[in-house]
Structures are given as C-alpha cells and as structure tokens.
C-alpha cells in the first residue's frame, strides 16, 4: 500500500480537528487508512544516511498508508479534505465543485501519428493563477511522484509533465522523433544533450532516472512534446526540459500526461487537477485543452463528464443487513465525499434507489458494490451486528486428503517422524543430486529470485534427504516421512501440468542400510490400504515388488512397487553418490509411492 508523508500540525489544521495519536489511529482504522510511522525530517535523514543534519526540521511528520486504489488520498490536500468531510457527521460539508473554465482561445495539443507504437495517449489541462508556497509546491511534486510509483506503474503506463505556461506557447505537438534529434537542456541541468547522450549520461552518473530509460530505449523513435516554437517541454516518460520548469512563482501550470492506457491517463490527469485546483484563484476551476488526435479529431481534456452510479436502497440494505432509509444513506455517502440523490428504482418503481454522481477523484467506483462499501465504511464496519449465515450445508473432507491424513497418523505410529519440505527446489535437487537424468518433465520457473527455487519438485526424496542432512546430530536410526504433492508436466490438464500426491519415507542408520525396514513399511502401508501381497500372478488389489533400476538407488538394491501390475513407486538403498551429494555419512533406505484414491477405496 502506498504511503503519504504529511506534516501533522498542518494536516490537522486542514482536517479541522486536533487529535491525540490514539484518536487519530482510531480514526484511521475506521476509515481504512493506517498511521504507519511518526517521524520528522531530521529523523528520516538520520535513518536514511545515518547522519545528523543540523538544519533539518523537527516538525512531526505522519506517514500514512492509504488503499492502493485511492489516488485521491495520495497527498495532504486530498487526504485532509476526505477526512474533514468524513468527520462532518451531519453530512452537510461542502464538497469540492470541480469544474471546467474554458478559455476563449483554447490551448491546443496535436498528437502526431508517429507516437502510435511508442506511447499513443496524451491528455492535458491548465491550472490558472495558482498560489504556490513551499509546502504546496513540495506537495505538488510529491503527488506526481506518488502517482508515478503507483497507478502509473513506475511510469511504464502513464507519466506526468508539468510546466510553467508563461515560458511556452500553444499549439503543442506530441510526436515521436529519432533520439539524436531530441536536443534539449533537461531539468536540473545546464548542458544540452540529445536523447542518446542523455541516456548515456544517466547510466554513467547512475541517475535515479536510469531505470525508466528501458521503457522507450528499444524503440527507433522516442516521444517528445514541443511547443509552437519547437521548444522541448519533455521527453516522456523520462524527464522534462529545464526551460519550462515550475518554480514557486509559477502562476499558470500546463499539465501533460502521456500514456499507453487511455483510462489511466485520464485518472492521473483528473487526480492532479482536482487536488491542486484547490489553490487556483478561482477555486476548483480547471482550464481544458483541445487535443487533436492522430485522425485529426478534436476532443477536450480533462474529461469531467460525471459518471453516474445507481444503487438501489434494497441492494444496499440487503448486502449490509441493515434497514437504512434513503435519507440516511445520502448522509453516509456525503461523508464519503459522494454527492447523491434519491431516485426511483429502475427495476422496481415502488422502491427507491440512490443516484451517485461519482466525483472525478473516485475512479475506484466501478459498480454499485463500491457504493455499498462506502455506505458501510461511513456506517462503521464495527457497528454492524454480526450474525451467523443461515446457509445450511454439511461438512465434507476431500477423500484423498482424508486418506492421506489417516496414513500420516499410521506412519507416525510406525515410528516415522513427519517433515514438511518445500514444493519448490533447484533443478539439481530434482535430478543431479538424486543421480537421476533430467527427464524434461519438471515445471520450470522463468523468474526465480534464488537458485533454491527454480522448479517444482518431481519427487519428495530430495526434501527428505535434505532434512536428514540438516539434522546430523540426532540419534540414529532416523526414520522420516513426508506426504505431499509433487508436480510435473501433464498434457491431459487444462494448464498442461498436474500434481501427484506422494508418500516418501526414509530410514537412516549407522548399522546397516535397512532395506528390510523400509520394505516393512511398504508392507504396512499396503496392509492399511487392504492390498495383499501377490503370489505369482497379479490379481485385483495385490502388490508385488520387482527389481527395477533407479539411479537414485544402489544397483541391485532397487525395486519397483506394482499394484495390480501397475507401477506406483519404488524403494531401495539410497545410492552412495546421492548420500555424498547430501553430505549424509550413514546408509539410508527410502521409499516413494504415489497415492491415488483407487488405492484406498
């Protein structure tokens, strides 16, 4: 979940209430956010660099965790407004009235078809007469960064550029050009670079922007935004130009958002203008920009067309087990900053529904169920009276799990101690360390973080041997077992892989390999499954063991186990080379069988 840093005192001023820490934590819990940390600039610097900075501030900072789909809570402005409105229990708080204030001579941005394959979407807006101070300016920069890290997916999906409008002139163009042709002085620099040189510069200076270069690096052309005079505003999604840089004195802000995803571009633009139109001379007003798309079609952004979401009163009450009146619901929704009215239910004209005009800040509302949640939050989850569901069903175990649980107990009673090892392992664990050839049947992971977890285990033996290896100090003989799933490729299933339920047991002793001990366990398991030893011919529910080479076992001391003539596993004296690979100095015998339901029933 994203975290937002706010100055506590300033934040409480904006919310209009001064809390104790406990009160604030309680409020967070009810609203669905979390006070993650209480710190200060000085403490943060000390924590990050280990140094004490003399002139750092001691002002209390709150680090607040917000839900990942609430982009409107990613800055002090949005968070304080939301809580202020939430705290107004009467539901009479004024909600921000976000509106478009068109210019007689609208600014225009023309999208060239060259961006089609690189980063096709561009939207823009203008904030006029913004009153910045240091804190607001910092918050403005910080919100962009928070959006970049979250909904923008580290700029891959969406990126934001903000510019001092007084330094540039409309119409703007959004096109893709050869990297060598994109020459400009990048932000916070005084030297001119072309895009190729700039990327090299980021790499040699190990800039924090280096990681974003991969988003466009392999394209033959890079996206660029220029003004009417050819001045470069930005090289999305990497960096803006120094020329149009925003300062504390900037009054008119031009905001461009480029993206690969149209919906997300709109959400990001709307979030920024909603949050910072608060500081415009005409509060909550946003000047739209004309966008000329690839086909020459003109549209206007930002798109403030309200989304209407209807939720019937009966649906809300039914989902929450409540009997709220429509009026009560209106108050609850208003506390969640959702302006709504009572209308007739479309499906049942005798009943009422709630029509919510979803504000531009609430892109998380997709369906009436989202309205239900907001009603529930405002009502208070912990004010709902728990009741047991009326659903009348009977309990039932998975038969295979039941069989295996019964076997586990029996095997433990036979003196074997249970281990529980990982289903993931290295490729060597599966094959080389068991002296077995790679049969190409293992499920292979494409992006393992460690060599320990490269593939799915093809047998349980490796994990059990590792358990022996990790417990060399224990008194011998050692008897271990595991029942669990192995997995491998399987053409017959809808994902081309399947699990197999298996038993593995191992006997390790200083006095002998104990083949007969493990054989005894096999006989016991078969007895428990009501499968009898076959004499001569293989009949129904009989088992036999026959010599069968398995490189994991010692030659001549390795057998296959057959039930009704079909192989279900094997046992043998573990091969000395396998023991050596696991650094086990004592002889071992082991058994591994596949357990299927027909064996038990």
């Amino acid at each position: 979940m994203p975290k937002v840093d706010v100055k506590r005192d300033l934040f409480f001023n904006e919310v209009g209430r001064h809390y104790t820490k406990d009160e604030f934590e309680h409020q967070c819990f009810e609203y669905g956010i979390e006070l993650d940390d209480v710190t200060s600039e000085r403490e943060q610097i000390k924590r990050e660099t280990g140094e004490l900075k003399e002139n750092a501030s001691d002002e209390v900072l709150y680090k607040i965790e917000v839900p990942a789909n609430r982009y409107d809570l990613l800055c002090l402005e949005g968070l304080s407004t939301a809580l202020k409105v939430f705290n107004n229990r009467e539901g009479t708080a004024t909600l921000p009235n976000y509106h478009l204030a068109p210019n007689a001579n609208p600014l225009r941005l023309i999208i060239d078809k060259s961006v089609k394959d690189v980063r096709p979407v561009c939207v823009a807006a203008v904030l006029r007469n913004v009153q910045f101070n240091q804190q607001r300016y910092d918050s403005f920069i910080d919100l962009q960064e928070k959006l970049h890290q979250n909904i923008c997916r580290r700029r891959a999906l969406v990126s934001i550029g903000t510019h001092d409008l007084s330094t540039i002139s409309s119409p703007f163009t959004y096109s893709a050009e050869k990297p060598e042709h994109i020459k400009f002085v990048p932000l916070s620099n005084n030297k001119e670079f072309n895009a190729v040189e700039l990327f090299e510069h980021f790499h040699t200076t190990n800039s924090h922007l280096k990681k974003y270069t991969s988003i466009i690096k392999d394209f033959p052309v890079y996206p660029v935004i220029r003004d009417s005079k050819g001045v470069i505003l930005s090289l999305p999604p990497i960096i803006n130009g120094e020329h149009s840089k925003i300062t504390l004195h900037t009054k008119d802000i031009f905001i461009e958002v480029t993206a690969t995803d149209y919906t997300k571009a709109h959400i990001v633009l709307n979030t920024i203008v909603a949050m910072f139109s608060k500081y415009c001379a005409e509060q909550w007003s946003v000047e739209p920009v004309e966008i000329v798309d690839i086909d020459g079609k003109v549209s206007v952004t930002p798109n403030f067309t309200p989304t209407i979401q209807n939720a019937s009163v009966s649906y809300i009450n039914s989902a929450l087990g409540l009997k709220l009146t429509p009026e009560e619901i209106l108050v609850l929704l208003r506390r969640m900053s959702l302006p709504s009215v009572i209308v007739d239910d479309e499906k049942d004209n005798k009943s009422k529904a709630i029509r919510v005009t979803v504000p531009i800040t609430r892109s998380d509302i997709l369906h009436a169920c989202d309205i239900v949640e907001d009603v529930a939050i405002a009502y208070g989850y912990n004010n709902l009276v728990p009741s047991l569901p009326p659903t009348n069903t009977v309990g039932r175990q998975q038969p295979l799990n039941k069989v295996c649980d019964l076997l586990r107990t029996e095997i433990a009673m036979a003196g074997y101690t249970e281990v529980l090892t990982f289903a993931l392992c290295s490729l060597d664990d599966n094959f080389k360390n068991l002296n077995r050839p790679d049969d190409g049947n293992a499920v292979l992971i494409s992006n393992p973080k460690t060599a320990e977890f490269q593939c799915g285990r093809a047998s349980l033996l490796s994990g059990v041997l590792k358990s022996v290896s990790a417990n060399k100090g224990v008194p011998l003989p050692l008897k271990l077992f595991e029942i669990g799933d192995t997995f491998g490729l399987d053409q017959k299933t809808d994902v081309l892989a399947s699990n197999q339920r298996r038993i593995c047991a191992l006997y390790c002793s200083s006095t002998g390999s104990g083949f007969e001990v493990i054989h005894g366990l096999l006989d016991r398991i078969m007895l428990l499954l009501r499968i009898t030893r076959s004499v001569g011919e293989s009949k129904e529910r009989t088992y036999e063991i026959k010599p069968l080479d398995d490189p994991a076992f010692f030659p001549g001391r390795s057998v296959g186990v057959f039930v009704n003539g079909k192989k279900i596993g094997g046992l043998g004296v573990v091969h000395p080379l396998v023991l050596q690979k696991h650094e086990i100095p004592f002889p071992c015998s082991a058994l591994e069988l596949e357990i299927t339901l027909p064996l038990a029933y």
Partner: protein
Amino acid sequence: MSSSSSSSTHPSDQGDLFTRIETELFNVLKTEGFISNSGDWARNHQWEHNDLLVGVLKSYEAWGVVLLDTIEQRSVVLTEDGNEILKNGSPEVRIFNAIPQDGVNQKEFDKQIKASLGDLTVKLGFAEAMKKKWIKIEKETGKLLRTVPSVEDDTRAQLEDLSCLNESGVQALRRRKLVHDAVFKTFSVKRGPKFTPNWRKPIADITPEMLASGSWRDEQFKDYNFQAMGSLTAGGHLHPLMKVRAEFREIFLELGFEEMFTSRYVESSFWNFDSLFQPQQHPARDAHDTFFLINPALAPENSVPRDYLESVKQMHETGGFGSVGYRYDWKEEEARKNILRTHTTAISSRMLYQLAQDYKKTGVFTPKKYFSIDRVFRNETLDATHLAEFHQIEGLIADRNITLPHLIGIISQFFHRLGIYDIRFKPAYNPYTEPSMEIFGFHPILQKWVELGNSGMFRPEMLLPMGLPEDVRVIAWGLGMERPTMIKYKIPNIRDIFGPRIDLDFVKKNPLALMEIRKD
C-alpha cells in the same frame, strides 16, 4: 567360560569378578574388620585398582556398608617418552649402535637412520652422543665414526629402577620429560553403619523369577531417583504445522464447510487473476510478485470455455451488469500465462464457476460453504517471515442475499475457536472483493491487536460473468497458516517451522496444537 583373566571384558567374566571381589571384601570385613590400603589389597589380588576396585568400593560406600578414607600417595612415573626409552633404549645409544664399526658416510646415514628412528629421536640422540663424545665426524671424508668401542645405556638403567635415584637424579629425568609426578588415590576401608555379616545387596528391579519364587519378600530394593526424567517414548511424530492444519480443518468441518480439491499448484493467470476481475496491469501480476513458468509457459488456447472467456474479457474492457469495467485492452495471451498460484482463491473461482454451470443446467442454485488449506507461491524476497511458499487457509460461503454481518459473524465464530474473542474490521482494498475488510484481533498470547487475515464479498464483476444468479453473493476470508503457528509456538523465524532445515527435536517435543485458549 574358564577364563579368569582380570582384563577380560566379557560381561559374564566381569560379573564373576565382581562377585569374587564382593565375597572377598565381606570376608575381610568379617574377619579383620578393615583393609588398610586398597592399593596394596588390589595388587595382592591382581585386580585393577582405579576403575574396577574403586567402583565396587564406592557402591558399597553409597549403601553405607563401608566407610572409605582417602590415602594420597605421590610417586614418580614414566612419561610416554620415558616408556619409549625403557622399551627401545635411549636415542644416543640407538644412534651409536647404528653406526658400523668402520664408520659410515654421514649423509647416507642420516637418510637411513631418519627413516627408521624418526627425525626427533635422531636429532636428540645425535646431539647427546656428540656431547658425550661417543661419535665424531671426520672432516676430510665427512665420515661418521665411533670414538669408543662400546657404550652403556645409563638413562635406560635409571628408568628401569627409579628407586635407586636420589632427588637430583629424579629431577634430571623430570627436566628431560622422561618422568613426571603422579598422585595415587587409594583408600583405607572399614565397616560402615549398615554393615552386617549377612548384608545383601539392594536389587535394582523386580524379576519374573522373584515373582515366581516369592523371593521379592526378602529382597532389598534400590531407591529410585524420582527427579530423573523417564525414558523417551518410541514412535514417530507429526509435523507441528500439519497439527495446526488439522485444527483448522476441524474448525471448518465443525462449521459445516466442504473441502475444495486444491492439488493444483500450476494455474493459468486466467483463473488466478482475470476470472477474479483483477486487471492485467495490477502490480500483483508483476514478475516481482508472481512466479511465471518457462514450461508449461502457456495454458492451451481453448482451456477456458470460450463464452466464459469472452464475458470475462468484456467485463474487464467495457464492464456490464452495472459495472463500468476497467476500460483497457484485455489480452488473452496475458491470461494464458501459466503461473504458480498466488492464492487458493484461484480454486475458489473454479468452484464458483462450476456452481454457476450447475445452476445454468438445472435452474437450481445450491448454497455452498467451501474451505481449503494448501500451499500458495509468491516470488518474495526471503526473510525471517517470508518464504516463497506458504499455506493459505480460505473459507467462503455462496448463498442468496448473504450479508456483510454474516461474514463478520462467521469470521467471529472461526476466530473464537482459536481463542481470539475481540475482533475488529478495517476497510481495505482488494481487487476482487467489495466491501473488503481486514480482520484484526486482540491476540491472547501477544496481548495486542494484530492483523489476522483478509475478507470481503466477491465483486459482482467476478460472479456475474460466471452465470451465477444476481442475488447470490459470496463472502470469503483467508489467512496464512504459518503466522498463527509461529505465534502459538513463539518461533520468530519461518524457516524453523517449514522446510527441510527444521530441527527434528522441535517436531518431537511439540505439544498438542490446541489453538483455543480457554477463558475458564
């Protein structure tokens, strides 16, 4: 067995020997009343003193039959080097004797003699023989020659009988580390308070013979040490995590839940994410969080019924059933990517889809309560509380008009059975549930509020494309199994309860996994 050798270690010989010592001891105590020195007494009978006789005497002392007084005797004994000289002669004599009458080339001699006597003996012996002027090296030829016809081995003679030496002679041998001082502990033995002429040894244990003959009446039995631990029990042990799993299973079964079949580690992104209305750009679908596969990389093209796939696609792209959808280009290729399932909810989704198909076929919706406990996989950076795989516990109820208070009610029931009575719910975000609630509880062991799990109502965008009736709602909750187990057994590192490096002693000494802490 006829051997009477005292050095024999055959158990029955040893037993005979004990009996003879004991008989002799009682004879002496009866007739003489004391033994003045156990060392002398042992030597006279050719019994080993320190390990054998002292052992017998100490047990009789413990029974109060004899009283022992320690006698300390200091004496000079040979060291290992001393014994070596006693056996083979002193190095200088051995060097002297090795030189032939008419001399020998020094270098050759060196090589040969070092091979047979060893470097150190040669070095010491050569120096000593030169010092005593027994041998010399002819400068012109480099030949080694005897200078005297024969020599006496004085050192060996001294070691043979140390009693002939005066203190300065002994001191000289001490300096050469051929002798050292040793303290011998022997005992004077007299009758103890419990001594009677016909005293009988207390018996360790009752035998079938005693039961048969009734001789147990006349025997004296040894005292037991009740402070000692009993012997370890035989038998195997179940794994602690599996014991906790059994408890959770039991709770679900008691509450009437049916177990889902979860033996399916490989899932397609479709069932793990898309069918749950989790958008394709969601961070959980990143390679940072999810294990993708090289083989089998993709689920086959028609592994999901086409009509269902299309309705899921439409829900993501343009919405429907009252939803505006996520409004992006949904890619089938992305949905076909196989992964190791990141949650068992992938199985829940399959089960609910099946339920919807049954409903479509029969027109009858059957309410269900499902549960599962099985492994899930995350491409986590590993640390003390995170592994690449862990066990997820999941419960869900599908019924018409089921409510959020029902979810709160069933979760409360569930956690009451784990001994957690104070439960609170916090609004949360989860892509496939709405409303979503994080579950917090006041933990009786930790004595603080902790997050216990997640819960919510599945979104209509997930259920309606499956074909479930509109008034069917599904409430669900989930939690990891490792964390409650770690809290219960106070284990801070997850690798100590799961994986091949677990200490078997922990498995063996693990108590019952009773999760509930009863208040009364």
